[in-house]
């Protein structure tokens, strides 16, 4: 199939964190305007807006997020759409944008995500997040979202051996990376012991095995590569691979809880389109909603054989420097933060920064090919993108 090549020409994001004084409008304005300024284009070139958001209707009483973002950013009457696929809402927006630009429908579009979460109490946020699973069959019997991944961890231990130390090492590594990222919510290094001693959420997960509750927003400008070369002086980062796959929403229906079929299938589509193999990837922002998830993702993306993810972390193979593939140099959902609908776009922000060579103290050496991996719910939705500087 001969689609048009698509690239990222501008990126912007807010600092992630507990931002009680900032509204959704405020967060969108900062990140969206930053992305447009970064591309150095006139706003009038933007033909459509794709906006990822998971839960503003429940947590902030705000629907119609596409239209809201267009008004905030002064984009007048362009078409907008909000995409929702739980924690994959942001990357779904990019996937739709890629399809629209590939097809020739649009030349330049804006893609964003935003979420405001920290103003609600823990039980309300937990209840909202539980809607990423099946509310009738899971949440209503007492199953929380973290508890599903705790069950996945226990099943992983049963099938492949205890990975508790490796899970804690994931948290330690991501916090160390986050400490170098000015946009990260957590900028403190932690120890293995601190992870073990954290407040227990759902055994074996402590609070340090869980991603953060975060306010934040991220935007990117996406353009047809042939058009990009005419309108921006910015380094053009081509989206060489795009994949999107689904799986059963309930954990009980899945064929396996330790291999995510949606990741396998989305990755296969993206690798095939990009004509690269997992071994070609220099850095990857993977969906570490929980520490066990990062380990499973690095296996499912083909970086390490099944069951070898824990050993890979413990032997430094996922380290930012000197490893096989740098995993979550931004700090990931664990330390950078997880503003749910913005997360998929915030992952792209990091990969583009790295491929441009602009990541400063957290720069991955020789970063040529980067990957983003974003899952929604219990890996019921997965979107993978692969990036490289355009020729």
């Amino acid at each position, binding site marked *: 199939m001969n689609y048009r090549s698509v690239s990222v020409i501008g990126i912007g994001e807010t600092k992630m964190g507990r931002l009680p004084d900032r509204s959704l409008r405020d967060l969108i304005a900062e990140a969206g305007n930053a992305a447009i300024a970064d591309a150095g284009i006139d706003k009038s070139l933007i033909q459509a807006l794709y906006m990822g958001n998971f839960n503003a209707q429940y947590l902030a009483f705000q629907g119609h997020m596409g239209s809201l973002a267009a008004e905030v950013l002064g984009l007048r009457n362009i078409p907008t759409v909000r995409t929702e696929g739980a924690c994959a809402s942001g990357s779904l927006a990019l996937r739709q944008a890629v399809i629209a630009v590939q097809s020739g429908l649009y030349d330049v579009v804006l893609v964003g995500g935003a979420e405001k979460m920290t103003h609600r109490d823990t039980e309300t946020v937990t209840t909202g997040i539980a809607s990423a699973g099946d509310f009738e*069959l899971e949440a209503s019997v007492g199953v929380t979202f973290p508890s599903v991944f705790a069950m*996945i961890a226990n099943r992983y231990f049963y099938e492949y051996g205890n990975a508790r130390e490796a899970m804690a090492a994931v948290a330690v590594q991501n916090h160390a990376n986050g400490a170098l990222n000015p946009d990260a919510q957590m900028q403190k290094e932690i120890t293995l012991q601190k992870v073990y001693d954290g407040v227990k959420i759902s055994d074996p997960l402590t609070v340090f095995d869980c991603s953060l509750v975060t306010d934040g927003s991220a935007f990117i400008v996406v353009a047809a590569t042939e058009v990009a070369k005419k309108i921006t002086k910015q380094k053009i980062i081509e989206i060489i691979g795009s994949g999107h796959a689904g799986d059963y929403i309930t954990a009980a229906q899945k064929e396996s809880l330790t291999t995510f079929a949606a990741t396998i299938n989305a990755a296969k589509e993206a690798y095939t389109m990009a004509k690269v193999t997992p071994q070609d990837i220099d850095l990857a922002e993977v969906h570490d909603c929980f520490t066990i998830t990062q380990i499973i993702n690095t296996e499912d993306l083909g970086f390490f054989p099944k069951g070898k993810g824990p050993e890979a972390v413990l032997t430094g193979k996922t380290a930012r420097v000197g490893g096989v593939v740098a995993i979550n140099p931004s700090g990931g959902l664990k330390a950078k933060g997880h503003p749910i609908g913005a997360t998929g776009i915030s992952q792209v922000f990091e990969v583009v920064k790295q491929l441009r060579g602009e990541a400063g103290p957290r720069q991955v050496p020789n970063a040529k090919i980067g990957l983003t991996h974003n899952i929604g719910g219990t890996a019921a939705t997965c979107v993978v993108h692969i990036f490289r500087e355009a020729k």
Partner: protein
Amino acid sequence: MKATIYTYTVIRSSTIDFKDKTPYVAGIVESEEGKVAALIEGYQEGMPISIGQTVVFSHLDAKGNKVFRFE
């Protein structure tokens, strides 16, 4: 009806509706009817739980979901 534990966890941070029940055990249990997510009642702090362990059907909750209990 008996079922075996496919996987499980002790939940200590819950949604609004289950706030008064923590800590409690939920899991995926497997029987001839297939796998289902379920509450497993009768957990006491520190008791050993393992995958493959047998649990017993207790009752249907108000919404018609199966609730199991430890033997």
